[in-house]
């Protein structure tokens, strides 16, 4: 594209670049403030308000939050749920998506309709809760995974991807005597790694960020993932009334630095995988806009 170099255009560029830089900064600054604040002392934070680079470095806040095993336990739950959940969801999603991608399957469109309909209408909070209770998942860590195992949206993306693989691949696998299982695991899945990676990331982020299912289904606070602990420490302790169960470990209102440290612990894994996320999610977001 030819650049136009009029004065007006240059002023436009200067204003535009400045504003965008500011927007980017404002979006990211809260994270910097929280991370920096978590690595300093409470007094430093109280004296100099907007800490970006602390003059006094300190691990006090981290020492404090790791002095009990609440956070360790919660991190363990979150990591476990994320790993097993992603694996479980991916397995169920890929199997179902592959079956539904095969055009010769009798009843395929019926099952697809059944899947899509759940995106439009659902039984609601209470009936779902009662079913989870009936199948005995209350207070079990499986409650964080099994009731949300398949995301209909992810399933459809996966199925579309499988469907768009060249037909010849499956036919030649058949001729070579490959069973349906063999075709899926030895040929189709290895060819679908980009889609598998994208959807695994979708699931992993969802599992790491999950908190509402834990609040609904887990009364036992020793099984809470880190997001729920974060809510207890920061949101409920911000002088708010409401549900204060499970706050025994942090009886007095925690210092700001402590809250910040817990936020960092819950945020860091996402920031670490963010470069991969950005690459894959942008693709995924556009995949979603293609009709299923």
């Amino acid at each position, binding site marked *: 594209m030819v650049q*136009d170099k009029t004065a*007006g255009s240059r002023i*436009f560029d200067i204003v535009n*670049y400045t504003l*965008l830089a500011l*927007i*980017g900064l404002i*979006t990211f600054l*809260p994270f910097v*403030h*929280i991370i920096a604040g978590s690595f300093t002392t409470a007094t430093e934070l*109280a004296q100099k*308000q907007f800490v970006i680079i602390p003059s006094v470095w300190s691990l006090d806040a981290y020492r404090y939050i790791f002095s009990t095993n609440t956070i360790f336990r919660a991190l363990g739950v979150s990591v476990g749920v994320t790993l097993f959940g992603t694996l479980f969801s991916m397995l*169920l999603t890929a*199997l*179902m998506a592959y*079956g539904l991608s*095969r055009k010769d*399957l*009798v009843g395929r469109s019926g099952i697809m309709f*059944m899947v899509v309909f*759940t*995106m439009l*209408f*659902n*039984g*609601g*909070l*209470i*009936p*779902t*809760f*009662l*079913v989870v209770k009936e199948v005995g998942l209350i207070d079990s860590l499986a409650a964080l995974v099994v009731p*949300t195992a*398949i995301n209909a949206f992810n399933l459809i993306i996966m199925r579309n991807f499988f469907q768009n693989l060249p037909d010849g691949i499956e036919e030649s696998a*058949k001729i070579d005597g490959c*069973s*349906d*299982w063999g075709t899926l695991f030895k040929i189709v899945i290895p060819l679908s790694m980009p889609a598998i990676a994208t959807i695994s990331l979708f699931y992993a982020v969802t599992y790491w*960020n999950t*908190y*509402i299912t834990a609040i609904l289904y887990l009364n036992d606070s020793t099984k809470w993932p880190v*997001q729920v602990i974060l*809510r207890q420490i920061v*949101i409920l302790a*911000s*002088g*708010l*009334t*409401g549900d204060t169960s499970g706050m025994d470990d942090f009886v007095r209102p925690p210092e*700001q630095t402590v*809250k910040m440290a817990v*936020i960092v612990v*819950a945020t860091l894994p996402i920031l670490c995988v*963010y470069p991969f996320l950005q690459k894959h*999610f*942008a693709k995924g977001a*556009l995949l979603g806009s293609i*009709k299923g």
Partner: protein
Amino acid sequence: MQDTAANNAVVVQPKLKKNTDLMRRILKNRALYLMILPGFLFFVIFKYIPMAGIVIAFQDYQPYLGFFNSPWVGWKHFERLFSDPMFFTILRNTLVLFFFNLAFYFPVPIILALMLNEVRREYFKRFVQTLVYIPHFMSWVIIVSISFVMLSMDRGIINELLVMMGFEKVNFLMSNEWFRPMYIMQVIWREAGWGTIIYLAAMAAIDPGLYEAARMDGANRLRQIWHITLPSIRSVIVVLLILKIGDVLELGFEHIYLLLNSMNREVAEIFDTYVYTAGLRQGQFSYSTAVGFFKSIVGLILVMGANWLAKKVGEEGIY
């Protein structure tokens, strides 16, 4: 090889009865059905049985009596809902938050995308995109926690800045007036960057020749945006707007549940939080199911209507 031979046999015997043929096709694909089975069971158990469970909205459900033995009460719970003054509070809150969304959130990704689209230096564009996409991947707990730490009365940075500039401290977290601005700011912070993706994709498809022609005619940059970029993405805007209207009842339970407290209940209670409080906190299973069912039905009608409208204006619908 035997399998293939069997398949061919089916093909060369067209006289086979239709039923046997169907059975054969199903049997041939039994491995595929086995693959679908776990997912199928998931949808039946966790999606369709709860849908059937909506019947308790028409019962006085007692946990020890179960779905089958609880007494039927007809429309009692719906009558109670419509005569409950809380119903109008919730409805008002939902509509007000929806209009806040429409007025203050909806234009932001469009404007941001227009700005990003004007950037010619790829590295700068990617840098800004990297920054503004980040909050989308954070849970609502993290977004709300960071806001609360910064807005806290107890040495929160925002209140300290207010004091420094000679203002009074504001109790953002526990007030009726600040709930809606706080809600919408968090929505903008988390989603505005991510929301640009679909617009940027639409803008990437615009023919560069159009801009060149406009420049020849002496159009400056703002005029190019106004007369070329915006009209080119108009249909995307219209579709997203319509779909947004279809989603009027989906304000984000996970988000609002975190913001809700006894001080702002008057403006923050929405259908989902009310279902949670009335159902799981107070144990009114049947009544809260009725509330949830009402919401789902209205939501379904709105989404279908919105999708129909989106197709009507010449765009492909989502479902």
